[in-house]
């Protein structure tokens, strides 16, 4: 005789120790298995796109800091690249190198938090995330030296960066780059062959290649599914064409692959920073751009490889001091489109892990 069961709706609610930010999942459960899932967000909507229409082009830069607040340098970079494409402004060499160094350091910091939070969701009681935060503190100290801030840097400007780095920056960066690979190796050794981690994340939450391309996933999520697409190689922006690095690609698209891709990307970022440090010239850090920019009428879309995926800015200008329309293509929003497909059939504990492995940031989803 078959057992008659009834499914019930569980609200993995906006206030929860483990959803990264205010995110709500309405899950329909049958026992422990999830049969349906509906993501609900919008709890952090601040109307950044509308606010951007009221501020000057330079005044939008602090707004972009708050999009993906764990990767502010990348947000700034994407925006100023879009404005420079729209207005046809060229950037001096030293500023380009500084931008690349900051963007890659930011990628390492963001991936440290992503990996740490993923392991925290797996249940390893705060130990890995505290180790990762300890390393991230060193990166934040470097950023503090450069911009005076630890989280929302507001460092890039249209036409370059806002100020030159102090003298003690490059030696400190050198020290960091020498020590960091040892730390990554140590964490990898502790975690990569851990039986419990493998049992919890291998084969869990598989995103197939076709589905990943169809839902416009990008970043580590897309690469873990087997698609070798990185904007730094496919459509190089700034001076990425001058550096040698590889693109780690996963094979299956499960949670373990996403974790592995992020760890490898950290190593590649260190490689890029080392090359950039060797080639950085001296000179101006900002080209002569007026305070209030009036780009000609037109529109431009430019995208970068942010830590979470492809971050794009679409700007429309009507020759006034503020953008006519500023649209932000948020990587986390599109990566979440396949959440339902990835989670159905798994259990509640896996839902938390799969969600953590996508690595979203509510700031850019809700904007």
């Amino acid at each position: 005789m078959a057992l008659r069961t009834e499914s019930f709706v569980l609200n993995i609610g906006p206030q929860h120790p483990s959803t990264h930010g205010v995110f709500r999942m309405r899950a329909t459960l049958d026992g422990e298995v999830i049969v349906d899932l509906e993501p609900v967000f919008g709890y952090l909507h601040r109307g950044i796109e509308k606010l951007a229409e009221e501020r000057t082009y330079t005044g939008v830069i602090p707004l972009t800091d708050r999009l993906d607040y764990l990767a502010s340098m990348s947000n700034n970079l994407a925006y100023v690249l879009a404005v420079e494409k729209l207005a046809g402004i060229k950037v001096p060499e030293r500023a380009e190198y500084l931008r690349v160094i900051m963007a890659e350091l930011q990628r390492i910091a963001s991936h440290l938090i992503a990996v740490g939070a993923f392991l925290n969701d797996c249940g390893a009681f705060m130990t890995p995330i505290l180790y990762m935060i300890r390393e991230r503190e060193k990166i934040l100290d470097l950023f503090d030296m450069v911009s005076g801030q630890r989280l929302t840097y507001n460092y890039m400007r249209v036409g370059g960066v806002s100020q030159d780095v102090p003298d003690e920056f490059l030696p400190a960066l050198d020290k960091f780059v020498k020590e960091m690979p040892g730390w990554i190796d140590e964490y990898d050794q502790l975690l990569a062959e851990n039986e419990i981690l493998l049992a919890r994340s291998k084969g869990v939450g598989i995103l197939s290649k076709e589905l990943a391309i169809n839902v416009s996933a990008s970043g580590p999520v897309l690469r873990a599914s087997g698609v070798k697409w990185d904007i730094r190689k496919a459509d190089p922006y700034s001076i990425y064409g001058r550096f040698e690095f590889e693109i780690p690609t996963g094979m299956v698209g499960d949670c373990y692959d996403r974790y592995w891709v992020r760890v490898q990307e950290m190593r590649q970022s260190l490689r890029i920073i080392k090359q950039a440090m060797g080639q950085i010239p001296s000179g101006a850090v900002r080209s002569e751009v007026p305070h209030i920019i009036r780009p000609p009428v037109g529109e431009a879309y430019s995208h970068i490889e942010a830590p979470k995926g492809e971050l794009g800015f679409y700007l429309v200008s009507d020759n006034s001091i503020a953008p006519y329309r500023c649209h932000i293509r948020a990587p986390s929003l599109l990566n979440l489109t396949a959440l339902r497909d990835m989670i159905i059939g798994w259990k509640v504990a896996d839902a938390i892990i799969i969600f953590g492995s996508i690595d979203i940031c509510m700031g850019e989803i809700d904007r």
Partner: protein
Amino acid sequence: MTIPLSGWEVAKQIAKRFPDAVSEAYGYFVLVKSESLFEVAQYLKSSPEFDFDYLTNITAVDYYDYFEAIYQLTSLKHNHSLVLKTRCYGRDNPTLPSIVRLWRGADFQEREIHDLMGTTFKGHPNLKPIVLWQGFKGHPLRKDYL
């Protein structure tokens, strides 16, 4: 480098299949009529020389007479990109066909445009507000909202 395809060339190809679909083509943009958007998009996705399998971005802009929706398409294999545009006139109940059946990535983005701009997407399976709360009156991103 991702090659942005020239709008003029692509418009010629499209016009061979769908004779009166294209309104304008300039720079890297192709402007199509909103009724034929779905067929043109399907052709661009499935034809082997274009093969646009990746939808990068959907945006909508409010020019006072019309709403313009901009679709950025990319082909991962050929590494080229195209910008497809379409317009819908009138401010009361602007509608556009939905392309969710071709690219599922359009799901959340079309819901957001519906929420903030007010354009309805015909054929979207779940057109609920995504960013604003239920019961919110008005469409904030329109130029006449504030």
